[in-house]
């Protein structure tokens, strides 16, 4: 297991300003060496990785040349300029691995084994390797297993992780980035900045705000698409927009109406949003058709004196004339709420307002003709009279619970096979012979006891004594074996080392068995060798278990053997399957030559 050397052309710089000495940088397993092209140059380097603390590098895609800055323990650093980014990454990875190895001996084994297998089998992305390492650092059991089996070559890296795909997947899913939703603050409240000296206001517009305005006001959006840049510049457009906003905020409906009459583009912003109104009408169509929306229209109390909502120090009060140039706060709030709930459904870079505008356009669906039909359908459904309607039953798979009698009745036929053959055989013949005799004997003994009555001493004193002795012995021995508290685990009573060994073996056995059983049926030769390796590892553990059993003190031997028994049973089952499979294979391969010969 040796890391291949990496030799790259690079310039060594003593500082950022330094033009650099051209030469060869050689990365080895435990150190890096720089040899300048000019052998007389003093800037030769030979640095061990144990002196290295960290590294930084310039980003690919930025305008900077590929620099790698390696900092050492003494707050100094070595700067190398490479010819290309791939060169830089190759060196960077080696240093990263070396740094990883230096972090701890356990981490070192992991990274080296991981590297070894990845170099032999497949290439993993560094992200995946990092994830695996992180998983192992979090779970010491996993790390132990990994070290034991992958380290000793019983399992390969990929086999080990193949059974833990879920762990890997689950972690990466957790990492997925959360999407930023639509801001819930009211964009309609953008306040202009006044400088106080002149009668002039300044609005600060960002792309984000533009996006929000488009989302909130489809009419503005439509106007933007129509007018910019064919009829007016973007700046003019926003000027007009905010002039309209300003008129709104003054609540001077009459002035607004007058301005709108003069300037038709301004009127677009001042008028009620046509697109919104259309959408609202559609929504109303989806309301329960039996509800009369028109009847409720006058019920908002806003037209009554002393009702209304305070906003910006004034009250929203309805005036009937020029109604189309008036917007209420509740409309704004509702629209804002609807947009926020809808969420950001565009994945567009919000740099160019034009693209935002177009993307928004696409996302807005056209009302379909089927809506009318749907409404009619709903109408008929809602107004249906209960007892005349067809059944709207959904197709459900009925839960079929069989008559329990089936179970109890069929048992008779099967019951014969249930007992051991020998036992059934003997009892069966006996029973057939003596059905009547058996009942006869039973009745005889009843009548016997009836006639004799209860004898004076039912139990002989000697027998009673043996019973007592037996019971006492039984009770004290079970108490001794099982502990005073039956809930108390036997494991806790064992010496710590034995306990840990047993637990570890149990884990190992589970891991090996999982791999063992999942390899059947054997279809490829690699599976065949894998099973062989697993079987060897298992028989080793089998022997180790035996040794543990032998090694423990006689006090604990019984408990330990109880614990070890199921492990041995599980292993035995695997061995049996292995042998059977081997024989089957041998028979198959043996048949061929026989058939030929």
């Amino acid at each position, binding site marked *: 297991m040796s890391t291949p050397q990496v030799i790259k052309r690079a310039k060594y710089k003593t500082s950022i300003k330094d033009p650099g000495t051209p030469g060869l940088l050689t990365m080895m397993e435990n150190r890096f060496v720089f040899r300048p092209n000019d052998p007389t140059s003093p800037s030769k380097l030979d640095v061990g990785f144990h002196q290295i603390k960290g590294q930084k590098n310039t980003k690919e895609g930025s305008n900077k040349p590929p620099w790698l800055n390696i900092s050492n323990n003494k707050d100094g650093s070595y700067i190398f300029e490479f010819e290309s980014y791939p060169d830089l990454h190759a060196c960077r990875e080696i240093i990263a691995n070396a740094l990883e190895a230096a972090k701890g001996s356990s981490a070192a084994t992991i990274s080296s084994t991981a590297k070894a297998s990845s170099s032999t089998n497949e290439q993993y992305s560094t992200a995946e390797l990092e994830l695996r390492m992180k998983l192992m650092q979090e779970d010491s059991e996993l790390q132990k297993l990994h070290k034991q089996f992958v380290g000793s070559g019983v399992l390969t890296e990929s086999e080990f992780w193949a059974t833990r795909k879920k762990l890997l997947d689950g972690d990466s899913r957790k990492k997925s980035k959360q999407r930023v939703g639509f801001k819930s603050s009211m964009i309609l409240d953008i306040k202009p900045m006044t400088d106080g000296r002149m009668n002039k206001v300044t609005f600060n517009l960002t792309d984000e705000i533009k996006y929000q305005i488009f989302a909130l006001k489809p009419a503005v959006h439509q106007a933007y698409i129509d007018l910019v840049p064919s009829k007016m510049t973007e700046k003019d457009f926003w000027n007009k927009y905010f002039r309209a906003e300003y008129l709104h905020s003054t609540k001077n409906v009459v002035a607004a109406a007058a301005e709108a009459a003069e300037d038709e583009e301004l009127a677009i912003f001042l008028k009620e949003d046509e697109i919104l109104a259309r959408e609202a009408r559609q929504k109303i169509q989806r309301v329960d058709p039996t509800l009369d929306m028109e009847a409720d229209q006058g019920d908002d109390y806003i037209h009554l004196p002393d009702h209304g909502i305070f906003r910006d120090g004034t009250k929203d009060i309805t005036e009937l004339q020029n109604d189309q140039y008036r917007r209420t706060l509740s409309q704004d709030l509702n629209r804002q709420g609807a947009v926020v709930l809808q969420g950001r459904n565009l994945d567009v870079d919000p740099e160019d307002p034009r693209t935002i505008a177009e993307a928004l356009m696409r996302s807005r669906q056209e009302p379909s003709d089927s809506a009318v039909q749907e409404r009619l359908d709903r109408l008929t459904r809602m107004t249906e009279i209960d007892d005349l309607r067809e059944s709207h039953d959904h197709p459900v798979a009925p839960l079929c619970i069989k008559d329990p009698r089936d179970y109890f009745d069929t048992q008779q036929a099967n019951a014969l096979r249930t007992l051991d053959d020998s036992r059934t055989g003997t009892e069966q013949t006996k029973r057939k012979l003596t059905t009547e005799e058996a009942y006869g004997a*039973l009745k005889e003994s009843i009548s016997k006891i009836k006639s004799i009555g209860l004898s004076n001493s039912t139990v002989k004193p000697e027998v009673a004594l043996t019973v007592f002795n037996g019971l006492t012995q039984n009770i004290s021995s079970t108490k001794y074996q099982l502990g005073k508290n039956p809930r108390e685990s036997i494991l806790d009573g064992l010496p710590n080392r034995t306990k840990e060994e047993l637990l570890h073996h149990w884990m190992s056995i589970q891991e090996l068995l999982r791999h063992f059983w999942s390899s059947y049926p054997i279809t490829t030769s690699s599976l065949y060798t894998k099973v062989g390796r697993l079987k060897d590892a298992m028989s080793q553990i089998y022997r180790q278990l035996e040794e543990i059993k032998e090694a423990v003190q006689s006090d604990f031997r019984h408990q330990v053997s109880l614990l070890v028994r199921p492990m041995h049973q599980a292993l035995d089952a695997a061995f049996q399957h292995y042998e059977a499979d081997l024989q089957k294979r041998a028979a198959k391969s043996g048949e061929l030559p026989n058939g030929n010969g």
Partner: protein
Amino acid sequence: MASVPSKLYADDVSLLMVLLDTNPFFWSSSSLPFSKFLSHVLTFLNSILLLNQLNQVVVIATGYSSCSYIYDSTSAPSHGSDQGRMPALCSNLLQKLEEFVTEDEQLLKEASAEGTPSSLLSGSLSMALCYIQKVFRSGPMHPQPRILCLQGSSDGPDQYVAIMNAIFSAQRSMVPIDSCYMGSHNSAFLQQASYITGGVYLKPQQPDGLLQYLTTVFATDLHSRAFLQLPKSAGVDFRASCFCHKKTIDTGYICSVCLSIFCKHHKKCSTCGSVFGQAQSEVPSSTNRKRKASDT
């Protein structure tokens, strides 16, 4: 819960439900003759009634093809039929028992079915539980109930579901099931019953000292049990019977919908009708597999 302490007379008044195995096929092969067994049991029952005036004893015969109440200390006439030669309890019980055995034989002849030489433990357990429920519901006060199975014949795996249901219902009503098993091998059903309900399972080593076992282990009321060291079984056989062939199995398949147990893979659950997905390969470990450790 019906058995709140306030409804008990006192902490040492018991209702003992005794399930008496009268399987003729077992007793004809038993080392302890049935008459001896009966005399031990009768003495035991008498001593239970003497322990407390309010104690109640109910005996249910567990036959081969039927079960029946054969004695109830609350309703039995105080005078026996045979002029004081033996206690009234004995003569009444024996009288009923004789009638029951005759009937049981009759039933067997009618059915003339092939069957296992096991007795109807599930039936008698259910009857005992019904009786206990009746006691719970009748009157303001009741004795503390427990069930004692005096079983000899081997387990009938075909009764597995019924017996387990009875066991769980006993557990729910906090009725311990004690069991004294006279047969040659341990009874997995009774072991489980006692384990689950917190009763005592005992397999006497000396069958002729049965009375001694009964009085030492099973005579004390539940309250006093807390202060006694009673025999504990070292291991319980938790194996289940499969629903398809009623075999006792230690590894099998379980329906993910209704938890029915099968000894081999089926396409469809025979109990609830759920269709199982196809296993990807022949490897059994790819489907639901459950391993039950035989002991801990």
